[in-house]
């Protein structure tokens, strides 16, 4: 075969790998009942594609071809190994249904990717194991990429994934989409994983290594897939929230990596496409009338994203949304954010009273943002000494460099 044709064939296989490999893997896991076996089968299938497609042409249904080929090679491998090893050491393929059955989508058969997402995010797995496994199996990141992205040592990360797969096997966590009754809690677990991945990418300092994977982008892609396969309001709400937060990425930090507050950001740098999509998704999520925490946070984010400038922000509406959020998911951090909004609506004094009440209870005493919020309100009220003390407290607790520099600047401003 000519060099050109071979190159084109390779490109085709690569393109199919990019669009279909995750889906093929998800189906192979169901058919073979084992993650590692399925991964091996996936690679064998694509190797076979590289050999055969240039010769026989692209199959009409590449995904079906790959699943069928992978499954065949895996079962063949199992049978060969069974002749060498005792039978009880060799896993039996989970599913022996006829070939044409296992790929039907949308006739009551759920997308295997949904099964995969829910299994990787099973509450029986440790939270950091869920994150690592999801990024590896659902998103297709390599173990190295995940380790680098989370600044974790490679062996530790690899071991985490091995342990998670072993637990799925040994505790017999089934490869299923949860029933309707279990769905709310199980979906919450998935959304937490996705949002955690997003936040890891969102707050990463701009000076971070160039090889750190774009986690925020990955989280958004994952949320898109989830919302497409399972259009639950909270899944839609989380996607909206992340798009709206991501839309401000270019405006969040100065060229030297300094923090720029929302009210001071250059709104021409905001990504209008992401905002447009986010706003539409917020409306969709809220139209369900089921006001979950992610949808509510997205609605608040929408109220920040819509106005042409900070002064036009509808703080009264924001406070109302925080009232609902507090009922749905009461937490001191939500209370704090509400207090900041109340300060914008009713003046710094009102906000300060609320924050003091939270701290007096003993909540958030180690949370740097509580003290920096308090400091800001004291500063606006002219209570310079109190502001200084609060900024110092915040500075002692802040862990990220840009935040520390920001607080130091505020302190310096107070001295003048």
């Amino acid at each position, binding site marked *: 075969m000519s060099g050109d044709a071979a190159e084109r064939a390779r490109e085709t296989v690569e393109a199919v790998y990019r669009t279909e490999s995750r889906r093929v893997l998800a189906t192979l896991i169901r058919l073979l009942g084992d993650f590692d076996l399925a991964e091996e089968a996936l690679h064998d299938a694509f190797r076979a594609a590289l050999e055969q497609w240039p010769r026989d042409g692209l199959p009409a249904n590449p995904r079906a071809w790959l699943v069928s080929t992978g499954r065949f090679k895996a079962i063949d491998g199992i049978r060969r190994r069974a002749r060498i090893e005792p039978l009880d050491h060799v896993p039996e393929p989970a599913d022996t249904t006829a070939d044409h059955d296992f790929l039907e989508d949308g006739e009551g058969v759920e997308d295997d990717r949904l099964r995969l997402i829910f299994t990787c995010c099973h509450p029986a797995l440790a939270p950091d194991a869920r994150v690592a496994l999801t990024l590896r199996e659902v998103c297709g990141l390599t173990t190295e990429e995940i380790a680098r992205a989370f600044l974790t040592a490679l062996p530790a990360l690899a071991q985490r994934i091995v342990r998670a797969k072993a637990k799925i096997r040994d505790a017999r966590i*089934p490869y299923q989409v*949860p029933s309707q009754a*279990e769905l709310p809690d199980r979906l919450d677990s998935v959304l937490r994983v996705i949002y955690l991945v997003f936040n890891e990418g969102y707050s990463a300092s701009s000076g971070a290594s160039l090889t750190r994977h774009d986690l925020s982008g990955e989280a958004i892609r994952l949320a898109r897939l989830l919302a497409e396969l399972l259009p639950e309001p909270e899944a839609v709400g989380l996607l909206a929230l992340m798009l709206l937060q991501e839309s401000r990425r270019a405006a969040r930090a100065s060229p030297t990596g300094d923090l720029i507050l929302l009210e001071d950001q250059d709104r021409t740098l905001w990504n209008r496409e992401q905002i447009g999509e986010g706003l539409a998704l917020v409306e969709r999520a809220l139209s369900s009338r089921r006001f979950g925490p992610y949808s509510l946070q997205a609605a608040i984010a929408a109220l920040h994203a819509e106005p042409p400038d900070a002064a036009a922000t509808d703080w009264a509406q924001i406070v109302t949304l925080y009232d609902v959020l507090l009922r749905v998911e009461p937490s001191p951090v939500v209370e704090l954010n509400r207090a900041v909004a109340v300060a914008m609506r009713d003046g710094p004094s009102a906000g300060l009273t609320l924050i003091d009440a939270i701290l007096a209870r003993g909540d958030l005493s180690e949370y740097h943002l509580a003290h920096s919020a308090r400091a800001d309100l004291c500063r606006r009220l002219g209570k310079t000494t109190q502001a200084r003390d609060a900024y110092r407290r915040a500075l002692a607790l802040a862990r990220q460099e840009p935040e520390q520099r920001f607080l130091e600047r505020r302190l310096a401003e107070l001295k003048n």
Partner: protein
Amino acid sequence: MKYICLGYIDQKKWEDVSESERNALMDECFAYDDVLRDNGHFAGGEALQSARDAVTLRYGNGKVSVTDGPYAETKEQLGGILVLEARDLNHAIQLMSKHPGVRVGPFEIRPAADLTAIVAESSERRRSANEGE
């Protein structure tokens, strides 16, 4: 597949509850145990007396020492064991989530370890050792 369910109790909370409330909860627990039995999920179980009545054996310095039970002031103590037969972990979670006992303290659900192969190997070693004598 077998799962061992370890039921913990917050001893202090349990003692603060009135006798009639305790009886009511026990009735619910035993009734649910019957439901599990009727559906073939109950493969055994045992309630435990208070941790205060326990004794601990520990090996050290070449011998076994005997002391009183676990630190009884620990909030949660093991109160009972249930051997559950379920299809898979999700099924076990479904069955035990509905057990009234979960309201008194957490359940730990662990897959039973199948030691068949290990026991067989050990028997083989002991048999060879005996034959060697």
